[in-house]
């Protein structure tokens, strides 16, 4: 029987460590690698210029790599549900393969495609390689619910075997045994579109700081010395240099799958063991990868993960709706140079350091503007190269203290924090050129500079550069009270301690066997609080009727879905 394979690229835009692609090649007579592109996306506000450019560069790179193996990438315009039936017939497809997508929308879309494929007699093979581990396994190990704290997650991961070893890159020999039929007019029909074709104006755009593609990813991976790697993966002490886009930064490549997370994992592991006489590396070496894994795990069974209303793991916080304030934040016009510089770097380059993310997220939500984290999430979705659905939503919930049992007392001051990280002010001068003449003393708070200084710097606050949009002392005072109000309802703790308003996670205390049994019971002095928390946590697992979808039953459920407008593209299956 003739086997005609189609490998469907969605994420996983690479030829190394690609088990699904290997399945496509296995014993096949022909193989075609396909990417389905919905041109409608380009018009949607939620995927910005840098993300498109990165994606298209990655696709071009795939095409180039495949060409070297006498194959090509087939970029098909349209929607998967429309595109595949046509291709199945045209190409006589008997097998389709793709990398497992753990996100809820992805799973739904894929289930429909698999069913449809079956009707065409097409066998589907799906392999997991976007995450280090099998996420469902982790969830099962935790009593069928995703771990709610990172420490708990780490404890579970520690009990697993090592992730699967990455597979080698597809070779020419492999491809030779299952060639790709390439038509003369391949370029007309199936080439990677250009940015212009998608409706973007490229004239006047800067060179991309982050160049997409597997080749670039592997180049970054292999180029640096051990010392540099270890230095960057050990406790990252922030300094002004860290804020700049690093030539060894890998997060966008992991997101698009240009780099396999398992390849990175083993590279780190091997480097560590080489440098440390073959001792097993501590889990902390992989912290960044594990955070990514944590959010994927938390999101995979929760289609409401990216919303507040109706999301069982998200606190219902009375955020303010203020489109004007949101626009100022998103466009870097808050009047706080640190915030504006970060948002400018984000818009221009598509990547910002994680501490910069914390600062602007805190500013938007619980720190100053009291605007919903969902709004911030959407802005990041548009501009941030490494933001995908699970990680972006999870991070925003974490940073706004909407979930995951975070203490909310620490608030990043838009001036003070900036002074610690960027004492010279060079980061600000680079991204806000208007302020470049300001002396270090005033660069983080130009409104405090005397008029004479402002005039000398050719930048008057209120004219050339905005006045600060809020008084941080005032807003932080109000907001800490708001957070306390929310948490006191949730935990029913009405005492004086600010720290105790955030309930302790009972599960953490019970599972670690390294702590002697007797002390395990001394976790929290407040028995009543513990029982209310565990009942709240168990409550979360129960199905609740739609209108009562809110945190718990102790307070009168007065919050009902206000029908937040869903993004139009959500109903289209979002692939990237």
């Amino acid at each position, binding site marked *: 029987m003739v086997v005609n394979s189609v490998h469907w690229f969605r994420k996983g835009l690479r030829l190394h460590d690609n088990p699904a692609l290997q399945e496509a090649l296995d014993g096949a007579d022909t193989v075609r690698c396909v990417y389905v592109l919905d041109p409608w996306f380009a018009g949607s506000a939620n995927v910005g210029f840098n993300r498109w450019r990165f994606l298209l560069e990655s696709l071009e790179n795939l095409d180039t790599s495949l060409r070297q193996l006498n194959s090509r990438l087939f970029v098909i315009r349209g929607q998967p549900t429309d595109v595949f039936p046509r291709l199945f017939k045209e190409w006589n497809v008997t097998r389709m393969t793709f990398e497992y997508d753990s996100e809820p929308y992805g799973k739904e879309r894929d289930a429909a495609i698999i069913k449809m494929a079956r009707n065409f007699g097409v066998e589907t093979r799906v392999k997991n390689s976007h995450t280090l581990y099998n996420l469902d396994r982790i969830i099962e190990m935790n009593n069928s619910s995703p771990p709610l704290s990172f420490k708990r997650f780490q404890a579970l991961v520690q009990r697993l075997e090592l992730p699967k070893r990455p597979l080698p890159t597809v070779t020419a020999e492999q491809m030779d045994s299952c060639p790709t039929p390439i038509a003369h007019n391949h370029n007309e029909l199936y080439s990677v579109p250009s940015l212009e074709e998608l409706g973007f104006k490229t004239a006047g755009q800067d060179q991309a700081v982050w160049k997409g593609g597997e080749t670039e990813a592997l180049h970054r991976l292999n180029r640096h010395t051990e010392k540099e790697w270890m230095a960057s993966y050990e406790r990252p002490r922030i300094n002004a240099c860290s804020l700049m886009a690093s030539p060894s930064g890998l997060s966008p490549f992991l997101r698009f799958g240009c780099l396999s997370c398992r390849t990175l994992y083993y590279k780190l592991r091997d480097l560590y063991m080489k440098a440390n006489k073959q001792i097993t590396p501590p889990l902390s070496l992989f912290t960044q990868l594990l955070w990514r894994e944590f959010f994927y795990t938390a999101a995979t069974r929760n289609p409401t993960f990216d919303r507040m209303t109706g999301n069982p793991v998200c606190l219902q916080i009375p955020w*303010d709706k203020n489109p004007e304030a949101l626009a100022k934040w998103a466009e870097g016009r808050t009047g706080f140079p640190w915030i504006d510089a970060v948002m400018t770097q984000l818009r221009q380059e598509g990547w910002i350091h994680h501490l910069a993310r914390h600062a602007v997220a805190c500013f938007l939500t619980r720190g100053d503007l009291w605007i919903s984290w969902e709004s911030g999430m959407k802005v990041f979705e548009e501009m941030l190269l490494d933001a995908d659905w699970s990680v972006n939503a999870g*991070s925003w919930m974490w940073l706004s203290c909407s979930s995951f049992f975070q203490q909310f007392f620490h608030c990043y001051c838009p001036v003070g924090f900036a002074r610690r990280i960027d004492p010279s002010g060079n980061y600000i001068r680079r991204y806000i050129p208007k302020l470049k003449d300001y002396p270090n003393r005033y660069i983080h708070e130009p409104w405090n500079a005397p008029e004479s200084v402002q005039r000398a710097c050719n930048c008057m606050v209120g004219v050339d550069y905005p006045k600060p949009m809020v008084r941080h002392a005032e807003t932080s005072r109000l907001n800490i009270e708001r957070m306390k109000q929310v948490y006191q309802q949730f935990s029913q703790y009405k005492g004086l301690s600010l720290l105790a308003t955030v309930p302790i996670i009972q599960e953490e205390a019970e599972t670690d066997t390294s702590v002697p049994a007797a002390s395990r019971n001394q976790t929290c002095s407040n028995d009543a609080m513990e029982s209310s928390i565990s009942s709240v946590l168990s409550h979360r697992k129960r199905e609740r009727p739609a209108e009562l979808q809110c945190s718990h039953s102790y307070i*009168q459920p007065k919050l009902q879905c206000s029908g937040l407008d869903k993004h139009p593209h959500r109903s289209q299956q979002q692939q990237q």
Partner: protein
Amino acid sequence: MKRGRVNVTSKCHGFASTDGRIKRHKPRPLGLSLSQRLVKDWGNLPHHVVLQIFQYLSLVDRAKASSVCRRWNEVFHIPDLWRRFEFELNQPATSYLKSTHPDLIQQIIKRHAQHLQYVSFKVDSCTESAEAACNILSQLVNCTIKTLGLISTARPSFMHVSQSHFVSALTVVFVNSKSLSSIKIDDTPVDDPSLKVLVANNSDTLKLLKMSSCPHVSPAGILCVADQCHGLRELALNYHLLSDELLLALSSEKHVHLEHLRIDVVSDTPGQTHFHSIKRTSWEALVRHSPKVNIVMYFYLEAEEFEPFFCEETPVTHLYFGRAVSKAMLGRIGLYCPRLVELVVCANGLQPLDEELIRIGERCQNLTAIGLGECEVTCSGFVEFVKKCGKRLTQLSIMEEVLIPDNSYNMEQIHTEVSKHLGRLWFPDMMPTW
């Protein structure tokens, strides 16, 4: 499904009737099960039974149930179900949350105003919502409210309501209730005359008054409250209202023991360094009178503005520094705050706080909770601190980035070492590094 009305009271057939004759059973229809024969009419359940059940239901469910039959509707309006109400006033343009339905509000005002005892208003950042709250307040004329809370959930919208409108609405409740025991009016334009009205009508019953950030109140205004309301147990205000006279008034013989005193220290103008001081003797008088009093201080000052504080012994129990606080200040706290129970520091400078922390661990023997964000502490210093506090530390929250590994401990070891001294599993707080 009704199989025919069976009177609830006639459970037993076959007992002799009062006139001695044995009643004949009516022939039963064949095929009916026991449960079907005993079907009660849900509509005839006694009121108190329905009431009990209704108390478990949300307002929404209760409201739906009230349209089922007349009896259930009657139960819905029993005063007991209307003692506690939270009015939520939100505009779609400014909030994601729903508002209490205007019809329901009307119903409450018409039929249940006199039943309301524990009332709160939650408003969003729109001035309209705060105004709506004031309108409702003005109509609660025949009320016997005990607890009143005006809560702005986002921006302080009560401050944008015209002061006269606000004050007159509030006064309606102050005058009519006559048994107010608990009032929360933070971030509102309440003024001295309104407080006088409050005191004139509720001095015997007032137990709790929270009025942080009410700029129209003067020290004299709040002093009037302390002088007259001898049952006052909890008070929250801004530092500029605090005075020696106030503390002495709260410690007078006639006054009950004060339980909570919350003080917000905010600078009105940036760089304000002048804050009036409170005499040590006044603090001592307070603590003598109310030995168990909790004194909570929230500081929202810049590092330079702290000079006037903690120069001598201060009986504060809960301290929160909402912005940066200097190393020197933390040193002073170790010296002068023996009653300290909780310390939360939002941010500090770039030098390690080892010494200051260890001193606090030593001298503040009542310390059970500490939170540190954006500071620096070496791991050894931190372990030393934890050793000094031991198991009394029930809350220890420190950002992972704060700890600096040194020769004695790295990040892996610190977690086991600290857990050992605390007698429970402990981790630093983490932030996503993605």
